[in-house]
C-alpha cells in the first residue's frame, strides 16, 4: 500500500537561499503526523510546496502513490489534499455557512455550474450544515466570517479545510495564538474532524504535538533531522540539542 503522502528529495531555494534542503518523508494512511522545528526551519514552506502554493526546485511529491509535483493547488485539492493557513484565510464577506458551502461544492461535483440553484442542492446543504455543527459554529451560521472572534475564525479555517472531504489534511499551526481552554477545544475538534484521515500539522505548542501526534518529524534548517514516535523524539539527543535548545531561548524572549 502506498503512503498517503510521500516526499522524495524535496528541495526549495529562493534565489540562492536554500530553504528546504532535501526532505524525504513518508506519512502512512490514517497517521497523525506533526512537523516541528525552530522558527525559520522551513515548516510553512514545506506546506506550501506540498499544497502546490509554491513550485519545487527539485524532488517529487506523491499523494497516495500518484505524482502531484508541479500541479496547481486546485488540482492537488481535487485529488484529495486540503490545507489550512497559519494566518486565517477565509471568505470574509460570506457567512460562515456560505464559507463551508463554497468549500464542499467542488467535491460534490457541482463545479462551475450556473444552471443549478445552490439552495436546491440538498446534498450540499446537508453536508455544509453538518460541518458547521461539527466545528461548533451552528450559532454563528449566518454571521459574516469577517466579524468572527479569533477562536471562531480558527475553527472556520479548519472547517473550510476539511469540508471538501479530503483524505489528507494539512493544518498549519491550528492553535497559534489561542488561550489554554481554546487550545483544548481546538485539539478536541481536530481529533474529531480528522478521524479516519491522514493529518499532517505544523505546531509550536508541544502539549498539542505530543498529545495528538502518532509520529513527529523535526525540521531544522530545511532538513528532517529525526522522525519517530513522541517517545523517540523526546529521547533523541540531536533533537534536544538542535530543537529544544532553540525553544528554550525562544521562550526567554
Amino acid at each position, binding site marked *: 500500500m502506498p503512503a498517503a503522502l510521500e516526499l522524495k528529495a524535496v528541495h526549495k531555494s529562493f534565489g540562492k537561499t536554500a530553504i528546504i534542503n532535501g526532505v524525504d518523508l513518508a506519512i502512512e494512511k490514517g497517521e497523525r503526523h506533526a512537523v516541528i522545528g525552530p522558527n525559520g526551519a522551513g515548516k510553512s514552506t514545506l506546506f506550501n510546496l506540498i499544497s502546490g502554493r509554491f513550485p519545487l526546485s527539485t524532488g517529487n511529491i506523491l499523494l497516495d502513490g500518484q505524482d502531484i509535483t508541479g500541479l496547481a493547488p486546485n488540482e492537488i485539492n*481535487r485529488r484529495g489534499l486540503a490545507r489550512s493557513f497559519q494566518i486565517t484565510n477565509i471568505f470574509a464577506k460570506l457567512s460562515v455557512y456560505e464559507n463551508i458551502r*463554497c468549500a464542499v461544492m467542488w467535491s460534490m461535483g*457541482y463545479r462551475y455550474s450556473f*444552471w443549478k440553484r445552490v*439552495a436546491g442542492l*440538498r446534498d450540499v446543504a446537508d453536508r455544509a450544515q453538518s460541518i458547521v455543527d461539527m466545528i461548533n459554529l451552528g450559532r454563528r451560521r449566518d454571521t459574516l466570517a469577517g466579524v468572527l472572534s479569533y477562536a471562531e475564525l480558527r475553527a472556520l479555517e479548519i472547517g473550510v479545510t476539511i469540508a471538501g472531504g479530503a483524505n489528507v489534511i494539512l493544518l498549519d499551526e491550528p492553535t497559534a495564538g489561542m488561550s489554554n481552554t481554546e487550545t483544548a477545544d481546538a485539539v478536541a475538534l481536530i481529533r474529531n474532524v480528522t478521524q479516519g484521515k491522514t493529518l499532517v500539522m505544523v505546531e509550536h505548542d508541544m502539549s498539542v504535538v505530543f498529545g495528538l501526534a502518532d509520529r513527529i518529524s523535526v525540521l531544522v534548517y530545511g532538513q528532517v533531522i529525526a522522525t519517530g514516535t513522541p517517545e523517540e523524539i523526546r529521547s533523541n539527543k540531536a533533537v534536544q540539542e538542535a530543537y529544544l535548545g532553540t525553544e528554550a531561548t525562544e521562550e526567554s524572549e
Partner: protein
Amino acid sequence: MAYQPPPLIHRKRLLTWGLTAAVLIVMPLIFKQSFALSMMSQMGIAIIFALSYNMLLGQTGMLSFGHAVYFGLGAFFSVHALNAVGAGNFHWPVTLLPLIGGVAGLFFGVIFGYVTTKHSGTPFAMISLGIAEMVAACSLMFPTFFGGEGGISTDRVVGNAVMGITFGPSIQVYYLIAGWCFVCMVAMYALTQTPLGRMANAVRDNAERARFVGYNPTHVRYMMLMLSSFFAGIAGALAAINYELVTAENVGVVASGNVLLMSFIGGIGHFFGPIIGAMLVTFIQSALSNYTLAWLLYFGLFFLVMILFAPGGIASLITLHKPAWEVAQVRKLVPSYIVAGLAGAVLLVGVISLIEMIYQVETKAEQSGTEMSLFGIGFDAATVMPWVVSVCILFVGALLLWMASRYVRSSWTQVAAVINARRSA
C-alpha cells in the same frame, strides 16, 4: 434533520418581482411625455448594462475599464443584422434582435476574456483598458463596419407588423426594452444563486483560498466575464434599436467609465444597487443637461460626495436602515433627516449659485451678458452683491449641515441602543 430546499417561488420573491414587473408596465401610463418615455427606455438599457457590469465588479471583484466593448460590439452587430433584415437578406424578428447582440457580446467575451481574466486586480483593470482603447482605435480604422465618425444608422421598422407591433412608436420600443430588462434582471439575479455565482463571491473575497477548495479562480473569472458580456451585448442591441444609430462612442472608454459610475453610485455590494444607479445617473444626465450647462460638474460633485460619505452607494444607505426598520425605529430618524435635508438644500443653493454665476461670467457673458436669474431672482453677476450673498448662503448651509449631522448622529445613537437591547433580549 433532512434539509428542505426553499421553494423556488415564495411570497417575498413573488412580491419583489411582481412589483418590478408592475412598475415596468405602469410607468409609461403615468409618464406619457415623449421626453419621459425616451428617458425610461434609456434607463432600461442602462439597468441591463450596469447589472452586467456588476457581475464583474461587485460579484467577482474585477474592476473593468472596458465593459462598453461588449455593449458596443453587440450594438454594432445588431445594427448590421437589423439593416440586413431591412434589406431582405436575412430573416429575424426584431423582438429577438437582442439575442444577436448578446451572442456577439459573448463571442468577444470569449476572445478578450481569455486574455484579460488571466490576471486579477490592477493588471486586469489595465488590460481591460488596453482592450477598450484597441477596440476604439479599430472602430475608426474599419469604417465599413463601424461607420467612421458618423456611425451606422438603421431603421427599426422592418418587415410586416406582427399583431400591430412595428416598433415604430417609441412606446412599443419601451415595452420591448422593459420586457428584455425584466428577463435579464431575473436571469442575472438567478445567476447569483448558482454554484458559479457563489464561487464568484468567494473568488472576489479570497481568490487564493478558492484554489485550495478546488476551484480555479481564473476559470471562475473567465466564465463570469463571458456571461456578463452576453448581457452587455443584449443591452447594446436594445440601444441600437432605441436610437437607430450606433457610433464609435458606444465602444469607447467614456461609455465604460459611465457604467462604472452607475454601478458605484448605486452600490456594488448589493444586487439591486446598479439598478438604482442606472436609473439615477440616466435621470441626472438627461434631466440635468436640459437645465444647466454645468451638469457634468454637478454630476462630478455628486459622485465625489457619494464616494466620500457613502462609499457603499445608495444601496448601502438603504440597507443601513434595515435593522432600524426591523425594530420599527426608523420614524425616530425621520425628523433629523428632514433637518439635515433642509440644511443640505441651503448648502446646495449656495453651491449652485456660485457655479452658475461662474458659468455666466466665464462662458455665457459674450452672448447673453452678465444679467441672469436663479431661483426666480434676477440679478447681475458682474456686481459684488450676488457673490457675497452666495458665499454667505454657502457658509450658513455648511454650518447648518454640520449641526444637523450631530442631530442625525444622536438620533442614530438612540436607535442603535434600541437595536442592541432587542438583540441581546
